[in-house]
């Protein structure tokens, strides 16, 4: 084979050299790449026709191609002074020939145009000119990285078709990333992350609900990566690109390439970022002031609204004075001056919970790296430290990173590389409990403005209003909880990669890569006996049979959870690539990949714990039932294996026409699933026409590049948790004392009809750059159709189960993406460039099987994340909401839903479905980013906007119209509710039990109230993500102190957001979640120095 190719090359050489004049001389040399010192095979070395003319040669053209070692020999006519060397992806280079030198080493620099020349897919390095797939590449430099902790935060607004939404402002919280909308509904919707070729484990982001607690400082394994170590990020979007990653790639792939050492002098780099994040303001929430709250309570006590009448400061004063009934009967004037004074004194308190529960913070980050090497070996070493303090005191997170990367060239054919990424993350917080009010974000919104945290002696004042209906003797104070509880999470992540690349000959390459990933997390939580958390535990375990004491020993509680995720990934592949007759380019690859993952979890709880002595006391359970409820130990273990085979092939003709295909078989361990589902085939076809290479366009100098791509692929997925059999897992239990038996617990119902979920993707795109690359754009259209999609559906409880996975729908995502980058002004001192990307994604459910028990409407013809609501028509003359029925009449809830006496609708499920109206999509239809960079002499300024448009959010109702708890604070909407004296209001009245009973029950127990269109808001927004001003310190100043380059910059993040009306909410992004932390503003000073 090798001989064959060599012969071809030789033949070409001969062909080229045929007309060489004997009067000339022979010049030889090597062409190598500056990037890795590798020889460039097939680079063309030519004498331009100009030169030939000048030299007076009769030849029209003269040139040779380099051989497998990058060597060339060319006979040039006398008088030729220059050779021109070119290679795709590299800047053409002209070499001046000197008379006394016949040997030259030509070092080619990779070209730095907007369209990068090779694309790393994780499996292959594909030349841009042969790229048939839809792929976006983002180079990560210090400038664009900004002051962020995690890689995912970098991506917001950078890539067309990738939406990154921040759900909460908690330090280190992951972003919700979607590539081209929502593809699948079962399982994860997160993209697959790949680091230097190895797919990562544990990158799924949990649902928004779970992120709301501060002690749920959830981090995906992506958070272990230091953005400063990243060279570039490639986002794979269509089937042609992702098919090779198999089933896990259904939601797109994000490929991270980390920095490498480069041959040459050692480079030392130091950077630091110091950020200040001011105390967030919750003014936007429009909470009641003390005076307003007191008025509200007084007002409610005189009304017929009796829900939780005993709660609230006013009610308590009245009860203590025994004037509760007097007030109800006679009002304010019936109160004694003393009681009036007490109530008025509440007005004067006005505790600013936001002010005392939150803080301004200072965050720091330091990175240090050394890299370099020679032609035999390169290295890259870095360490990084990141420390972020949450705006909630006591909450912080830090990360320590180290990277060691080395690469050795053992021979001209064999290259070996080893990398080690290690990180340790530690976060501190305190305990929040299931009631949620220990969460400062929740508490700051719910605590009464007249509540004081401390008395004059500095002792805790306990809040008894926030604890639900009954007055309880459990004492709660948010500051005490913060003081006396701890919650720490320590995570360690190690990823080791080892790869071997063997160049068998010119055409064949073999490579193998072994990756090992270990993520270990240790969560410890501690509660002192003097906390609400423990008091509650004691209260719940106090038994009359024990003489009214708790069976839990005195002291605190210590819980520890440990989990370990391990993964081994091994792949081996053979690549073939060859060019025949200069016009036929063939590439092929075959490979196999196996992966095994292990997960174990262990949890232990100790009571009677003393933090000083680290000792605990035994728990003497009164009986087995209690022991079962207070499990002191639990563990679990899971193991999974995957094996895959894959191949790709591509053929290019004359560098103009390329067709490609890829196929992959994914196998995984499936238990209780038919073996025919074991291997899933996935494949794609694709084509590319590079019009700019056509003779008729090559002459048009304005067009630098023009190409058209098309691809089609199919992917499949099967739900592993559902079996067609009745399947369960073993547990054991004592039904009667002293006898323990095995039981088989059934998790999901059997489903004999579950089929594969299939996704077909069509992508068509065009890339163009014109006017010396001043304007480049990529335009993509895609059409992705998922059929037999699997989703969890609610079952009638009479099946014995709550939900099951079913093939329920087919769905289409189609959209257009445009990425445009322009160089608007380019002068010697001033440049202005713009990157603009915009994507329109339209998601439509094409067909949906609506279970006969479903009462929410079918989404056929609407987006999967549709927001449906009951159309309201104002209020009736008692302040009850009125609804628009299908005939356009305003009717009450009872009439609309035909409520029975118990408040349930007597309409059939289908009739209930028809009562809803479609409002809009919960996902933005348009997403994108707009980045402007200005450079003036040593200054640069960039502004980065990201936007999400045409979306709706369902917000939590400002107050419940049936179970509004007057003991807690709320926003000012309650003041504007309908009352007989405020009958023009559009906000519902507080309803009274017993009056219009069926409607009351419907509102309090069913979802009607929260499903009213009153609680759906448009949430379009544009966010100024960051603005950065940098200054490159002039080299002449630096050279004196031995510094190569230095940049100082100021950056501000999240300064502004423009959106539709989001009154009563902190950010448009978090409108659905009242208790999310605000997205923090920050101001950063950064310094980056290279030696």
């Amino acid at each position, binding site marked *: 084979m090798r001989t064959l190719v060599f012969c071809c090359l030789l033949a070409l050489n001969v062909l080229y050299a045929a007309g060489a004049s004997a009067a000339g001389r022979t010049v030889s040399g090597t062409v190598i790449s500056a990037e890795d010192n590798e020889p460039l095979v097939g680079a063309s070395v030519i004498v331009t026709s100009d030169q030939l003319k000048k030299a007076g040669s009769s030849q029209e053209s003269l040139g040779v191609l380099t051989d497998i070692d990058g060597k060339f020999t060319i006979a040039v006519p006398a008088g030729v002074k220059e050779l021109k060397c070119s290679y795709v992806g590299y800047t053409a280079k002209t070499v001046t020939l000197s008379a006394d030198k016949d040997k030259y080493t030509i070092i080619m620099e990779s070209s730095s145009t907007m369209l990068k020349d090779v694309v790393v897919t994780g499996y292959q390095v594909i030349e841009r000119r042969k790229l048939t797939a839809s792929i976006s590449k983002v180079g990560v430099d210090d400038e664009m990285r900004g002051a962020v902790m995690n890689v995912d935060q970098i991506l917001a607004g950078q890539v067309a078709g990738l939406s990154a939404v921040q759900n909460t402002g908690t330090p280190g919280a992951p972003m919700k990333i979607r590539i081209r909308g929502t593809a699948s509904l079962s399982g994860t919707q997160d993209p697959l992350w790949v680091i230097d070729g190895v797919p990562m484990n544990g990158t799924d982001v949990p649902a928004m609900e779970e992120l709301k607690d501060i002690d749920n400082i959830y981090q995906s394994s992506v958070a272990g990566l230091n953005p400063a170590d990243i060279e570039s990020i490639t986002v794979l979007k269509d089937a042609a690109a992702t098919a090779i990653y198999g089933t896990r790639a259904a939601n797109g792939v994000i490929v991270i390439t980390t920095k490498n050492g480069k041959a040459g002098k050692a480079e030392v780099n130091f950077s630091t970022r110091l950020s200040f994040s001011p105390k967030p303001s919750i003014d936007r929430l429009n909470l009641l002031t003390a005076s307003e709250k007191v008025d509200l309570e007084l007002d409610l006590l005189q009304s017929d609204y009796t829900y939780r009448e005993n709660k609230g400061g006013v009610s308590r004063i009245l009860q203590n004075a025994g004037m509760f009934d007097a007030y109800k009967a006679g009002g304010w004037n019936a109160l004694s001056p003393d009681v009036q004074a007490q109530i008025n004194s509440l007005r004067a308190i006005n505790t600013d919970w936001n002010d005392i529960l939150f803080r301004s913070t200072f965050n720091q980050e330091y990175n240090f790296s050394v890299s370099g090497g020679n032609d035999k070996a390169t290295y890259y070493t870095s360490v990084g430290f990141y420390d972020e303090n949450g705006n909630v005191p006591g909450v912080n997170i830090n990360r320590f990173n180290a990277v060691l990367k080395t690469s050795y060239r053992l021979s001209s054919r064999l290259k070996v590389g080893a990398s080690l990424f290690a990180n340790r993350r530690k976060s501190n917080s305190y305990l929040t409990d299931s009631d949620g009010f220990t969460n400062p974000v929740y508490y700051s919104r719910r605590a009464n403005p007249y509540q004081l945290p401390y008395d004059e002696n500095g002792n805790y004042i306990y809040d008894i209003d926030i604890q639900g209906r009954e007055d309880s003797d459990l004492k709660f104070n948010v500051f005490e909880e913060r003081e006396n509880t701890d919650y720490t999470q320590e995570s360690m992540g190690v990823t080791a990669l080892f790869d071997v690349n063997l160049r068998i000959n010119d055409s064949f390459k073999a490579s193998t890569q072994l990756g090992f990933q270990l993520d270990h997390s240790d969560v410890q939580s501690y509660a002192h006996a003097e906390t609400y958390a423990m008091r509650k535990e004691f209260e719940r375990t106090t038994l009359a049979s024990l003489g009214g004491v708790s069976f839990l020993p005195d002291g605190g509680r210590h819980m520890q959870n440990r989990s370990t995720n391990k993964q081994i990934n091994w792949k081996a592949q053979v690549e073939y690539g060859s060019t025949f007759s200069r016009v036929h380019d063939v590439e092929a690859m075959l490979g196999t990949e196996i992966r095994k993952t292990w997960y174990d979890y262990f949890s232990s709880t100790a009571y009677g714990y003393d933090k000083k002595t680290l000792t605990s006391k035994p728990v003497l359970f009164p009986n087995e039932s209690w022991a079962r409820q207070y499990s002191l130990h639990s563990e679990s273990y899971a193991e999974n294996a995957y094996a895959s085979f894959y191949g790709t092939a591509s053929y290019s003709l004359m560098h103009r026409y390329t067709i490609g295909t890829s196929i992959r078989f994914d196998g995984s361990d499936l*238990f209780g699933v038919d073996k025919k589902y074991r291997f899933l085939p996935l494949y794609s076809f694709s084509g590319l026409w590079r019009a700019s290479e056509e003779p008729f366009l090559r002459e048009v100098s304005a067009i630098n590049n023009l190409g058209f791509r098309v691809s089609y692929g199919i992917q499949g997925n099967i739900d592993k948790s559902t079996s067609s059999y*009745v399947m369960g897992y073993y547990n054991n239990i004592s039904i009667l*004392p002293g006898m323990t038996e095995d039981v088989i617990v059934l998790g999901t119902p059997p489903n004999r009809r579950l089929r594969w979920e299939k996704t077909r993707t069509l992508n068509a795109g065009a890339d163009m750059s014109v006017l010396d690359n001043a304007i480049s754009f990529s335009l993509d259209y895609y059409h992705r159709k998922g059929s037999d999609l699997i989703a969890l559906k609610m079952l009638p409880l009479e099946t*014995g189960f709550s939900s099951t996975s079913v093939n329920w729908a087919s769905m289409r995502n189609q959209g257009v993406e445009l990425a445009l980058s322009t160089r608007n002004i380019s002068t010697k001192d001033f440049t202005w460039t713009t990157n603009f990307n915009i994507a329109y994604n339209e998601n439509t459910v094409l067909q949906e099987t609506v279970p006969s028990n479903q009462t929410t409407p079918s989404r056929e013809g609407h987006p999967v994340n549709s927001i449906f609501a009951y159309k309201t028509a104002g209020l009736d003359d008692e302040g009850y909401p009125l609804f628009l029925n299908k005939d356009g009449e305003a009717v009450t809830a009872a009439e609309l839903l035909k409520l029975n006496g118990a408040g349930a609708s007597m309409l*059939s499920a289908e009739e209930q479905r028809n009562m809803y109206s479609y409002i809009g999509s919960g996902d933005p239809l348009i997403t994108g980013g707009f980045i402007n960079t200005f450079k003036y002499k040593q200054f640069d300024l960039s502004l980065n906007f990201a936007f999400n448009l045409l979306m709706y959010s369902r917000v939590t109702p400002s107050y419940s119209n049936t*179970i509004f708890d007057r003991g807690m604070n709320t926003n000012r909407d309650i003041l504007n509710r309908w009352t007989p004296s405020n009958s023009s209001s559009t906000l519902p009245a507080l309803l009274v039990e017993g009056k219009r009973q069926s409607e009351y029950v419907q509102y309090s127990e069913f979802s009607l109230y929260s499903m009213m269109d009153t609680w759906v808001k448009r949430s379009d927004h544009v966010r100024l993500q960051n603005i950065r001003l940098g200054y490159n310190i002039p080299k002449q100043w630096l050279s004196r102190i031995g510094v190569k380059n230095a940049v100082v910059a100021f950056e501000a993040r999240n300064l502004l957001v423009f959106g539709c009306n989001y009154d009563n909410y902190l950010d448009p992004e978090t409108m659905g979640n009242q208790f999310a932390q605000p997205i923090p503003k920050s101001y950063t000073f950064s310094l980056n120095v290279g030696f």
Partner: protein
Amino acid sequence: MRKNTISTILLGLLVLMSSCDSFLDIKPVGKVIPTTADEFRALIAEAYATVSDDRGLASFRSDEMLMDGTMAANDLNSYKDIWIWNDYAASENTATFKWRQFYHVLFIANYVIESESMIENGTSEEIRQMVGEAYMLRAYMHFILVNLHAPAYTKCDPAATKAVPLKLDSDTENTLSRNTVAEVYASILDDLESAEDYLNVDSWETGLNYRFTTLSVDAIRSRVCLYMGDWSGAYKAAQSVLAVKSELADVAKMLPSDYRSVESIVSLEEVMSAQYARAMKVAPAFFKMYGTGDLRKNKYYKQITASKVDLLKGGSNQYSCTVRVGEMYLNAAEAALQGGTENGLDEARTQLLTLQQARYNASAYAAKMKSVNEMTSEDLLQEIYDERARELAFEGHRWFDLRRTTQPRIVKTFKGEEYVLEEGDERYTIRIPAEAIEANPNLAN
């Protein structure tokens, strides 16, 4: 050369492919598809373990319990609205009746019944016994459901009154509608007959006596018939149990509801779970029903002060009890008196006194005997009801008994405020939980 390379690669891939199957054959820790008799036994054990303690939760609605302001907020939040029958504006933290759990048991029971011929590695007795137990579970779950969530058989027109959906197969795709009270009871009686046919174990060793036995069929049947007002059926069934097992426990030594007691027929439900037991006190008026000389007074309860009485028979699975001998005497007495047998009045006196003899000390019994023998039919019926309340207190019977008999007016007081359940109040039927209606709107009709 190229051919060679490619064929080598292909060969290599083939070898890998075949070795893959074993690489991928991972048996997940603890996961199982039941096929053998042992595995089916474990599956039925799960069904037994899933049987809910809703009879205990329903007891909050009867007159047995007291709640007051001294109780933990958490308990008040969970149970107070059930206690005061506040069904229409219950606090959002109120405990819910476990509708799905009943149907989960039914799913397993139906699956076992359907799998009879596919169970491997078991003797036919063993397999038939399991299927029989599945029929018993099916009958008993429907029986509790219909009594929780439908009007009492004796207080409505059973053929025209909607009850709960009958679930008689393991299908998970259809959406069911409510069957009538009569249909549900007919199915329960059918299942009891099938169970009788299949069951072959007379008794289980202590610790496994949560399982149904041949004897349990008539024991449950006697209760079902009693609830239907089928007096002769109830009497006959109770008699056939008593013919085999009639010994009454010595209350001084062991509570009759203890799972080790001689009275145990089926010791399945932990009616007064640990949670319920700690969340309530014994209602003083109820406690007053126990007179002097009643041996149960100091064994069932511990009186702390005049108004504070703690419950001893609960809070642990030691007191798990579904059906026991004591109830059989009461069923027989009531059924006999109501015409279940000839010479019913005398027979009722005999049955009642047999039980009372074991529950009162000698002098109190002598007094009882005298008064019982002098009672009119009406008075005797009341005495049987009262003895039933005393004997089966906190075993999950009281609420059901009130429902099926007189549905009296009950008044409860909490912090000075009075709550009333009127005579024959519609709240004698517990609403089907909202979450069940949300998942199946047919249940609202």
